[in-house]
């Protein structure tokens, strides 16, 4: 019961703030609403007992990336940005993409409904005490089963980082 209440609360906050984020004109307000949406998503992770994902979401997205976002936003002259007409011509494209996405999700649900027993995997709720330790399990699967993809992603990020440094150095 409590789980359901928490889920609908966080999901509602996430969706609501995401909608508000797109419709605000003020960039800083949008950023604050994006932070709210990210925090609500973290809340859903926590409600699913994925503690490690919860804190990683907060440390990386909220504590790291959003601080940089806001830092950059503050360097931009907001008054100029406010007067420009924004995202006016993308309305129909956006609608099309949204419809396509909704159709895709709907199709998935519809097709899974027709396959009894093989549809969307539904896990029965386990008692919190019986769950394996969260961060340890994440570490095991990252450095065990998924070591190669993990290393590839790391190398990709390293290349991006070195590239950024090289590009920044060239200017001076």
């Amino acid at each position, binding site marked *: 019961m409590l789980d359901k209440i928490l889920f609908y609360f966080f999901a509602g906050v996430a969706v609501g703030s995401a909608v508000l984020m797109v419709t605000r004109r003020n960039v800083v307000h949008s950023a604050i609403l994006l932070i709210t949406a990210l925090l609500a998503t973290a809340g859903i992770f926590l409600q699913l007992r994925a503690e*490690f994902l919860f*804190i990683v979401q*907060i440390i990386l997205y*909220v504590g*790291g990336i959003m601080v940089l976002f806001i830092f950059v936003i503050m360097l931009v002259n907001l008054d100029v940005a406010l007067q420009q007409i924004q995202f006016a011509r993308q309305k129909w494209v956006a609608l099309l993409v949204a419809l396509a996405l909704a159709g895709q999700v709907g199709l998935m649900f519809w097709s899974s409904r027709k396959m009894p027993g093989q549809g969307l995997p539904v896990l029965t709720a386990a008692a919190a005490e019986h769950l394996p330790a*969260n961060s340890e399990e994440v570490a095991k699967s990252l450095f065990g089963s998924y070591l190669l993809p993990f290393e590839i992603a790391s190398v990709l990020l390293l290349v991006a980082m070195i590239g950024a440094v090289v590009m920044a150095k060239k200017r001076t």
Partner: protein
Amino acid sequence: MSLEIGTDMNALQATNEFLRLYWAPLLCGVAVVAILPLIAGYIVLVERKIMADMQARLGPMRVGPHGLLQPIADAVKLLIKEDIIPDNADKLVFWLAPVLSVGAALLSLAGLAIGPAFQIAQDINIGILFVVGISAMGIFGIVLGGWASNSHYSLMGALRSSAQLVSYETAAGMALVSALLLTGTLNVKSIVEAQNKEGIWFVLLAPVAFFTYLVASIAETNRAPFDLPEAESELVAGYMTEFSGFRWSLYFLAEYTNMIVVASVATTLFLGGWLRPFARVPWLSFLDFAPPVLIMAIAAYCVLRVPKQPTRVQQLFMLAVAGLCFVTALVLAVPVVLPIIKPSVREAVAPFYAGIHGGFWFIFKVSVYIYLFMWLRFTLPRYRFDQLMRLGWHFLIPLSIINVLLVGVALIVGAYFHLQGWGLLLVTTPAAILALVAAFFILAVEKGHDARPDQTATSDFYVG
């Protein structure tokens, strides 16, 4: 009939479980939120007193004996001050920012364990990450508050603050990683237990990590010598310039709560949490008597000072303080004295002892760490912004990354030779020295680069 009683019992158990799971932490949380402003106020008083002592003056002396009631007077003054919101400020964000700051700081306290029994969020798996991650969110309060004030000084303060936090969080995180390598767990209680098992505090096994965390935590809490975001000689009061009264005091509360949080994290990870110094050395167990004796000495000193007080009210107040210390000393003395008088109760008072003395040692270590903060504040002059950035990026981050690598290598070598406890020093000390040498080498190389004539100082405008 019996079935009904059974369901009643079940219902009772369920209620008990519900109370234990939800209401006890809630009540503890409310208590912490209620008491913390008072504690923060007294930390301010202690800070002013220490500052006065270091500058050979008396400090606040007017309200109460030796200014002991000054925090309460300050709080009342702040509460009844006029609340000003600038005309061109972004009202909503201006309102939100201090609340964010103080909310994040208070929330992160929930993950800390003050003694083996006192923890609001019991035994969370992510433990220390929770504390660090949530307290890092307080930066939004500073940045958004600075932006919403619609003032140049505030904006500069906010920009500096975010740049500073992003730079130093990496170093702090890496320092945490090298300490966590030694424990292999994130759980706050298990970290302290691991130090108990090894019989050595991690500050000795990872001194470089402790040093890095110390510097980075000063920078993260925006304290002198790294208080660039509120540098009064350049930016009036930085991000707090436009805030007054209660909102300003919220920022203040957040700053001091953050100090407590970083001090507690350092205490848990490096200084053995609630453990007594040398908890595993039997012939040093007389240290158990240190807490009650220490507090009794404070009580005695207060009684000695009574005749020197100028007025009768102040004499009574001094006696009251002495009485309070006396009662605290008695409470601390009970669990160590009882087993000597009556050895059969040793088992019964053990949890009681662990709780009370654990709390004492934890608070004692946190106080020492905060004292270190104050000492540094009154000793070192403020850094310039480019110096601050250079220290962070050219020295601390390389140092902490190298240290993580070397601590890992040292632990593998230690495991190979089956080293434990104090024996681990044989491998971790060379690792620490090597890390320092490497970091200084990198610094020297960087300095050589910077000294080239074509590279003048960068013109970042937030340097001020």
